[in-house]
């Protein structure tokens, strides 16, 4: 009986301690822990790829590394958590991760009802279909009655249903929360088409044994602004992630790169001086040093560099940036950083 009471008391104490820890600001927790808990998805080439030696790389991984660089001046102080789509929001909301950088679509419901906060967009995407070349399908409108493989718990799943419903077509879904199971099913002929964001399709196809046996259909059936997500309620933490992303876009616009950083630090251009903290102190408002963007650019580079390194035309993923939504606003795209001032 005494033992029972002791156990109850211990359990109550543990609950109290864990909620007390939660009440601390995220930045403080990350500093105390000495590393950033960053959630990525199941390995997807280009966005969050896992190398044989256990290191992560990719466009979304660079977001994690950039935030870690801004805080610690060390992009490697990141604990990666590879989580399926279905559990990502719960895992972020209950504090297991500090941020989520895993091709997550910004939607109204997610932003307002799940206790989440979207920090910006690092990739503008749209949903498409991948079909075997041998099927001779050339348009999504020919998919009436098809069996379609789709990740469960994603906006993709909802857009798919909307698209077929609005075009008076029927389909059968083969769903799973694990992208590898789905791709395996698709390759085995278990479904006629595989649907996902087009970037995701390109990324997956690049890893197929015969990428040329598969085609991405021309239709784009949805808007998919993808970007990093943080918990709702810690505005300062949201600001850090948001302005690291904007800083990387701004750096590209100003022409600041990993290579010319030292030279740029001596620049007289006031925009560059504000970005690199040689004039004013923008980091102060977020609890970061004035030169936090210097750290980010030194370790990661600007947005364009990260893009070309992981998903650009010269990578196996090969998503050209020119004339796409992901080009800088000065080149007709949507990548536009709010002014650094």
């Amino acid at each position, binding site marked *: 009986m005494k033992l029972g009471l002791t156990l109850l008391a211990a359990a109550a104490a543990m609950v109290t301690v864990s*909620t007390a820890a939660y009440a601390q600001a995220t930045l403080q927790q990350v500093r105390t822990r000495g590393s950033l808990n960053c959630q990525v998805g199941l390995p997807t080439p280009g966005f969050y790829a896992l190398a044989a030696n256990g290191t992560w790389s990719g466009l979304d991984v660079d977001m994690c590394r950039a935030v870690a660089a801004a805080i610690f001046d060390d992009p490697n102080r990141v604990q990666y958590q590879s989580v399926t789509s279905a559990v990502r929001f719960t895992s972020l909301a209950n504090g297991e991760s500090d941020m989520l950088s895993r091709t997550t679509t910004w939607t109204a419901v*997610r932003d307002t009802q799940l206790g989440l906060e979207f920090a910006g967009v690092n990739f503008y995407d749209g949903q498409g279909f991948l079909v075997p070349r041998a099927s001779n399908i050339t348009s999504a409108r020919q998919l009436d009655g098809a069996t379609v493989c789709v990740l469960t718990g994603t906006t993709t799943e909802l857009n798919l249903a909307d698209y077929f419903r609005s075009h008076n077509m029927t389909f*059968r879904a083969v769903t799973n929360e694990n992208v590898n199971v789905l791709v395996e099913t698709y390759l*085995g002929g278990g479904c006629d088409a595989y649907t996902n964001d087009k970037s995701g399709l390109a990324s997956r196809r690049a890893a197929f044994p015969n990428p040329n046996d598969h085609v991405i259909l021309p239709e784009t059936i949805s808007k998919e602004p993808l970007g990093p997500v943080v918990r709702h309620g810690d505005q300062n933490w949201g600001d850090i992630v948001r302005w690291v992303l904007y800083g990387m876009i701004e750096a590209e616009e100003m022409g600041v790169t990993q290579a010319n950083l030292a030279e740029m630090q001596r620049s007289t251009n006031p925009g560059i001086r504000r970005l690199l903290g040689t004039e004013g102190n923008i980091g102060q408002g977020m609890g970061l040093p004035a030169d936090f963007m210097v750290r980010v650019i030194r370790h990661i580079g600007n947005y364009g560099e990260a893009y070309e390194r992981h998903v650009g035309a010269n990578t196996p993923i090969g998503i050209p940036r020119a004339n796409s939504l992901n080009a800088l606003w000065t080149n007709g795209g949507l990548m536009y950083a709010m002014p650094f001032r």
Partner: protein
Amino acid sequence: MSSSTSTAPPRPSFLNDAGVRAFFYQAAVFVAVTGLLYYLISNTITNMSQRNMSAGFDFLDVSAGFNIAFTLIPYREGDSYLRVFQVGIANTLLVAVIGIVFATIIGLIVGLARLSTNWLIGTLARWYIEVLRNTPLLLQIIAWYFGVFNLLPRPRESIDWGGLFFLNNRGFYMPGPVPQEGFGWTLAALLVAVLGAVLIVMWSNRRRRATGRIFPGGTVATALIILLPLAVFYGSGAPLAWDWPTLRGFNFVGGVSVPPAFCALVVALSIYTSCFIAEIVRAGIQSVAHGQTEAARALGVKPSRTMRFIILPQAMRVIIPPLISQYLNLTKNSSLAIAIGFPDLVSVWMNTSLNQSGRAIPIVAMTMAFYCVVSLAVSGLLNLYNRRMQLTER
């Protein structure tokens, strides 16, 4: 026990009184548990409102907007989350019921084979049990899905049984019955036949106990259940049309079909559970002393009758309690469907709906409530049956 007060022990002091102490500890534990529960619940609610997370069940009538690959009850993309919950329950129960039927049949056969005096049959049964019982169920489900059902030919090269049944990597297709006008008479006849069969069996049992004379009640009852509806069916002009599966566009259209994930799940669940049932059956039969068989033989009772009326009734007392827990295990294990994407309750409700709506707490609570209700109902019913089968001591 004497009622005289002189022999009673002296009343202990208030602090050492066992009754008082017991009451105190019970009260303390009750207060602690209630307090902890209250704390957990209020803490959850506070945290959720702090993080702007919605609780409550108001999302249930919101349109779900996703497709479900296989539904037992009608469902369309625009239906509400409540409908998704019902679809999930129906699918889970379907898998559980079919799995239980198959597992029981296979388990009974393998259990009896395990006892066979034929070396080959006995050894085969033993290997079947040992291999399948000792590998994880999740692994078996995935193996059936990827190793068998996903490797079947594509729709155009389907395995074809007489142009009626088709098996391909999109599913198993069979003709679906479409009742026409007048089919109600056949159903009514079936009902009458079942009632009649029950009466016949009860009457023949009573007569056997009273007079010792044996009437083949079981055979007559079976014949009644089959023949009467059949006669009415053809008498009323066979009012049942069939919807044939036909290859159109991407796949077969029409008829009744189940996806490969369903086939893989049912096969894996029934085979896995059948191993445990086989061992339970073997244990039950071996628990009946061999003398019973010998005594029956000495009295000239036929072997089939010995099994049915002497061995099995005694074995059932040992078999039923562990069998109940196997049925419950199978029902709960069906939630592993999530690995291969069969839309059972856990998959469509606790995974897809939770993720699309973000209402973690009400959704998890509803799922837990469902499994609790099913488990308690099944075990309650079977316990009732078990009580009737147990020895009545006089």
